[in-house]
């Protein structure tokens, strides 16, 4: 009992420190969001989505139409590459390979891969898909983004599939269903909501990425439905315009940053809401 007092004091100290740190983190986050909101709302208008960049001397006339289209194309292509591989990979880990040591290893490596800095992935893809071909290209950008979402989708799929009770699979096996029909008709159907949410959150993760695109698809002023050359990118444009000396380019960067932030926020809210609703239902 004699030790109770110092213990209580230490507890109070740690709690105060933890609360302060949390408050500091939140404070900084809100400053960033508030700044993006204030400057973004001031600069945003329809031209941002409808026009292409104007020379810096023509104040307020330009937009980032190509950059939006390019970013969308890159994200979509990345999802088309990453989602099927990720879902099938996660299926292997949770179903066909569930008793194998290699599955455990892949699962752990995926968890580690989620936290690889995206610029490292950009540099890696630069080495295999840009350097040998001699020019920045959209495929490299899409592959870099796909590599980023792959471990997220693999792990979410694995977790969601593991949540499907074995009794349900046994019931389907007992009906004489072969394994692939059990996975396709029963397991995927049960896990579909969770896997979809995972895909949504993974896309939110890459929608605002800049670093992996800098080395791969880089940026361009003109959008074409062609991934063999540089592709206009919203995030890289923000990076370049924000660092430019021209006031109207800087304000365009704020507006674009505002749009990207809202989009990522929206995907995250939808994704988390879906999780919450499912847990309740």
């Amino acid at each position: 009992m004699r030790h109770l007092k110092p213990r209580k004091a230490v507890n109070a100290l740690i709690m105060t420190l933890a609360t302060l740190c949390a408050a500091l983190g939140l404070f900084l986050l809100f400053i960033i969001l508030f700044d993006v909101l204030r400057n973004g709302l001031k600069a945003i208008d329809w031209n941002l989505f409808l026009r292409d960049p104007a020379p810096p001397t023509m104040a307020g006339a330009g937009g980032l139409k190509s950059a939006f289209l390019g970013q969308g194309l890159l994200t979509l292509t990345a999802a088309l590459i990453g989602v099927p591989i990720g879902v099938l990979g996660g299926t292997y880990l949770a179903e066909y390979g569930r008793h194998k040591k290699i599955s455990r290893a892949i699962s752990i490596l995926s968890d580690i891969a989620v936290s690889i800095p995206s610029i490292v992935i950009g540099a890696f893809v630069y080495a295999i898909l840009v350097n040998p071909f001699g020019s920045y290209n959209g495929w490299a950008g899409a592959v870099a983004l796909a590599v980023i979402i792959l471990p997220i989708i693999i792990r979410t799929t694995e977790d969601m599939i593991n949540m499907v009770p074995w009794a349900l699979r046994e019931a389907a096996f007992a009906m004489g269903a072969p394994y692939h029909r059990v996975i396709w008709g029963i397991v995927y159907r049960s896990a579909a909501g969770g896997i979809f949410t995972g895909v949504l959150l993974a896309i939110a993760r890459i929608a605002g990425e800049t670093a992996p695109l800098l080395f791969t698809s880089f940026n361009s002023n003109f959008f074409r439905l062609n991934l063999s050359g540089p592709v206009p990118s919203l995030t890289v444009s923000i990076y370049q315009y924000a660092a430019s000396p021209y006031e109207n380019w800087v304000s365009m960067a704020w507006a674009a940053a505002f749009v990207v932030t809202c989009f990522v926020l929206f995907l995250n809210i939808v994704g988390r809401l879906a999780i919450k609703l499912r847990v309740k239902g």
Partner: protein
Amino acid sequence: MDLMTVDKLNFFYGRHQALKSVNLPIRKNAITSLIGPSGCGKTTLLRCFNRMHDLYPGNRYEGRISLRDQNILSGDIDLISLRSRLGMVFQKPTPFPMSVFDNIAYGLRLRKVKNKNALAERVEKALKQAALWDEVKDRLGDNAAGLSGGQQQRLVIARTLAVEPEVILFDESTSALDPISTQKIEELMVELKKEVTIVAVTHNMQQAARVSDYTALMYLGELMEYGDTKSIFTRPKHKMTEEYVSGRFG
């Protein structure tokens, strides 16, 4: 007549021997119940009949189980067609995440029945056999998860019946249900034995006495006693059987 015979069956989960030289006949168009204390091997035996153990690595059978003189433990048996001859109803209801109709049609679609009228006809027939038709005929398109526990269990029975199996295996299928639902399932089992052969694992002594024609008592992986239900419950040969069925042990 015996539809199935179990002959000197040994079963191993890896190194652990769970069944020891079990011999048992399964009479056609009758209900055989498997009783015994927890861990005695009754569910293990039931799951040998449709080779559910093959889903997991390291399991091994020795001996013979014949179904119409065919050894279903032989390596070249096609498990998919075997499992359509022996349906299984589990402890907890296992409705698939789809509509009532699609649940019943699941096995038919696996067997490539595609004609819409044929499907609808067989779904209705199966639901009527399972005494569920009147309760769900207006909600065939609703998700099966919305049915009550007892209805879900009858749905699973209907799903099994739709593919016209020769045997239905019940694995403590009423233990998660309320008394009224349990009674309905029991009545259903008695009704169904006109068309199929039933093997039921149960913990419930009264249930075994009420519905089954033959009873097998298992203990520590061995078959202790087998006979018609009446004599097992009134004139058991072994002292242990008498103690178990009267509730003094187990």
